[in-house]
């Protein structure tokens, strides 16, 4: 059995809530079958207060082995480096001190969500709490633990980025650790598990036909492609949200709104309004990943010229107003 400890700091708890959405099977069944023993989780465990502190101290003195340390939420280093924006309840000690001490002895350290990975939403705006990630501060390696940090296994922090994370991203990463198959090779250059981060949100997007013909939405709720006007970053965002649905059959684009690239460091400050595409001379600034600009512009012009009437009309409507034409085999 692998012992897993889960702590939360400067976040919203949404990654834990998302974890509870795991299905086929539920998260408790999955952990049990993966051989993961939950030492403590803030939403699930019985131990409170003194019982919890005794367990944490047991880990620090080596009585309890810590195989996997999962951290959710940003690391609150302010004010002035003191960590006092989050003193862990009942302990009088800043959470960043607990995390540093525990990460030092954990076999694997896992950042769950973009806050723990990179700072995330909590680091938005002026960031006057000095929120940062475990091993990244935005795109820069470093963060609370420093760029050279390795866990006892010799591996860097695993960044299961997302706001929130998909439950399967967490459970599958933990399963691969439990199977002994995890190492740094499994991560991309932002530390994200490649199992889900080697895909683009664009893959499997149900609006792909609109994308092909550049039939674009102009208002929230329109059916068309949201890349040209609505700020959608699905063609650049590393995640499998449209090939592995959320909550049964959902995804951001299926829910009627653009991908905001929440698995990327610094997604929280895109430099433009989230739901408006920044453009230069009418051309979107962020082009699809690996697409040469000249070809994109040329193909976009061509496909716009060829847009079928059905897609033009449906793109700017809430409802399907123009169903696909039925072709009879005979006259």
């Amino acid at each position, binding site marked *: 059995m692998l012992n897993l400890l889960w702590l*939360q*700091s*400067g*976040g*919203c*708890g*949404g*990654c834990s*809530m*998302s974890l*509870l*959405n*795991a*299905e086929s099977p*539920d998260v*408790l069944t999955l952990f049990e079958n993966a051989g993961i023993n939950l030492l403590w*989780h*803030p*939403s*699930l*465990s*019985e131990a*409170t*207060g003194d019982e*919890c*502190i005794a367990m944490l101290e047991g880990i620090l003195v080596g009585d309890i082995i810590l195989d996997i340390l999962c951290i959710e939420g940003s690391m*609150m280093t302010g*004010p002035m480096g003191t960590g006092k924006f989050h*003193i*862990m*309840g*009942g*302990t*009088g000690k800043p959470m960043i001190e607990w995390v540093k001490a525990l990460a030092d002895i954990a076999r694997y350290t896992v950042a769950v969500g973009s806050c723990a990975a990179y700072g995330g*939403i*909590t680091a*938005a*705006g*002026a960031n*006057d*709490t000095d*929120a940062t990630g475990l091993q990244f501060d935005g795109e820069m390696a470093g963060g609370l633990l420093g760029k050279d940090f390795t866990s006892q296994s010799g591996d860097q922090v695993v960044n299961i980025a997302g706001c*929130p994370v998909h439950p399967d991203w967490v459970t599958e990463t933990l399963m691969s650790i439990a199977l002994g198959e995890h190492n740094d090779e499994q991560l991309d250059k932002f530390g994200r598990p490649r199992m889900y981060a080697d895909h683009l949100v664009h893959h499997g997007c149900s609006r792909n036909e609109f994308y092909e013909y550049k039939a674009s939405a102009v208002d*929230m*709720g329109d059916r068309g492609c949201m890349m040209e006007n609505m700020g959608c970053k699905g063609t650049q965002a590393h995640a499998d949200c449209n090939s592995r649905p959320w*909550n049964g*059959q*959902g*995804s*951001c*684009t*299926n*829910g*009627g*709104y*653009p991908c*905001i690239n929440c698995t990327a460091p610094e997604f929280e400050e895109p430099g433009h309004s*989230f739901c408006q595409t920044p453009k230069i001379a009418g051309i979107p600034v962020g082009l699809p990943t690996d697409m040469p600009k000249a070809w994109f512009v040329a193909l976009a012009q061509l496909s716009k010229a060829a847009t079928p009437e059905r897609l033009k009309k449906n793109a700017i409507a*809430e*409802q399907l107003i123009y169903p696909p034409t039925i072709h009879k085999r005979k006259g």
Partner: protein
Amino acid sequence: MSRIVAGPFNRVEGDLEITLETGEDKVQRAEVNSPLYRGFERILLGHKPMDALVYTPRICGICSVTQSVASARALADAMGLGMPKNGELCTNLVLASENITDLITHFYLFFMPDFARDTYAGASWFDDIQGRFKATAGSAAAQMLPARADFLHLMGLMAGKWPHTLSLQPGGVAKAIEPKERMRLLAIVAGFKRFLESTLFGDSLTTISQLKSEAELWQWYQQKPWQSSDFRRFLHVAEVQQLHQLGRATDHFLSFGAYGAIDDPMWAAGSYRNGQTSPLEIARIVEDHSHSWMSDSDYPHPPAQGITQPTLDNEAGYSWCKAPRLGQEVVEVGPLARQVVNGHPLMRDMISRHGGNVLSRVVARLLEVAIVVGQMEQWIKQIDPTAPFCHHGEMPAEASGVGLVEAARGALGHWLEVKNGKISNYQIIAPTSWNFSPRDQHEQPGALEQAVVGAPVLSGEKTPVSVQHIVRSFDPCMACTVH
């Protein structure tokens, strides 16, 4: 008199610490500390108003949709924008989906596991309750988690995902429901209803929602063995352990009104005390910083002119949470407050006998589950897939707006000010800010601080189990509290 610093409190959302002074085997005094500050009100400053719809749901992963709705309402108010009927219905459904999910999560995962503690090993009911509700190991979680996940398919369909959707907009919803999806929604709710009726209640939702008095509740309870459903299990424990005697606070209740149109909610807005209902007076709401780690601690702040400037220099401070007050009064919010303000006969009867307490808070929560899930089917049927779902508008360069909503755990308000096309002030008062506030300038303790006074402390207890029941009976969300 001895002093206990209890924390970290888990099975609440976020981190929580309570300092207790105990004597004569009872809690004599309490100070509640919300130990995490993130500063959303400052994060929002300078951003485009519509971007609040990205930031505010991320205040909280368990009240995410409610934060979205409050924000969308504040934006709509500032824009002078209304929404079509479909927008209202879909907002109700997404909001209900989150609230019901939270109420169920609270009951099964956060609240009941405390009765499976070894503290209760000698109790007559212990073996059954431990088998059913033991944290991570009980049989109930294994049934509840799949039912919860299936129910949240409604969220996948209507909101893309949960938590953190952008589908809830000032003028309605960004996701129009197609005819096939309307059928699917009915199927999802039917599946969840089956779980509630067979496992949670052991009876029809209608029967539960029509219970009219405490006497009727106990008559219903006695109709079948107490092990026949999870609600009866709870009532049995409550009866034996006398939970109605635990956790009384101010008995002054506040609700912003829930579901339906903003100006015509399904459950009325207002406040209730001593048998009297009063209309909601937003203008009387203030936030007091006297015992918070906040600047400007010498006078109360109406939220529209609120200030959020954290500082550890306030020596009287012991929490990052401000202290919201209605006028100068401490109020309790939550499902019990909602039902009492709206006049549900069962909850009015229960509080007339023993006030707000651990029993009445949990009963109100489950009563809401029964009422709302029944209502969800009606809302789905009323969706017209051929009619509009969203209106669109422009945000003026200078504007202000207020957005009020009821989260699973009570009244939530957003106060927005826009200058030069950007957010110049944004103030949030969350349900647990009300319930778990620190003292105010008149040294009045917050609702929880009052509720735990008198709670029994057993010999050797460092985190008294009675205090745990009381704390969790409020279903606190600490992430929202300070935000």
